[in-house]
């Protein structure tokens, strides 16, 4: 009985592993879901604003 349970569990793990690989392959085939913010105007503007805030604090610390 134990052997049967063990083999069933292993088969299940193997199935699960195969499933997750398949999902990963499908995701890879669909392409990278991450987008470049510069591809959209709003992404560009928001990136510029974020950079402004970062540089503001950098300059403020330099100026004392």
């Amino acid at each position, binding site marked *: 009985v134990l052997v049967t349970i063990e083999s069933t569990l292993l088969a299940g793990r193997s199935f699960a592993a195969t499933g997750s690989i398949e999902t990963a392959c499908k995701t890879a085939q669909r392409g990278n879901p991450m987008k470049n913010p510069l591809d959209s105007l709003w992404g560009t503007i928001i990136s*510029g604003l974020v*950079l402004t805030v970062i540089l503001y604090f950098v*300059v403020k610390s330099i100026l004392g």
Partner: protein
Amino acid sequence: MDYVPALARWIHLISGVMWIGLLYYFNFVQVAAMKAATADGTAAGIGKHVAPRALLFFRWAAVVTWLAGAALLSDKFVDAFTLRHGMAGIGVGAWLGTIMLFNVWALIWPNQQKILGLKPATDDEKNRARRLAFLASRTNTMLSIPMLFFMAGGWSHRAVFGL
């Protein structure tokens, strides 16, 4: 009144408006317009008559803006670019402007020449050039936001830092 700084400031502002104005025209107007014009078969006119003229004023306005800015900084040029002696604010603005000038002449213009057919290029090269020029132009649009913030602060930094 010292005429050289006054003249340099005036030229810096006029050419800067032309440079950044055309940069915003490309990014906010022409990219979308080209997409729509390509769809209805009228893109050739923009590519032939509008883009080359806009690019001519765009790239030379960038040079004039940088030179007038350098003249305006005068003996503070090194202090600004090394972010020393209280010149960090305008220095960051100057660095961003310099990176943008580099993008114009090293990335945008050479790739636009291929796109517009001013330089021979295969279809693959044209597609690559299109993507590179687009990203360089968008990078400049992004950099223009902090660049204008720090330029608007001037040398005194009082406007933005209250120091």
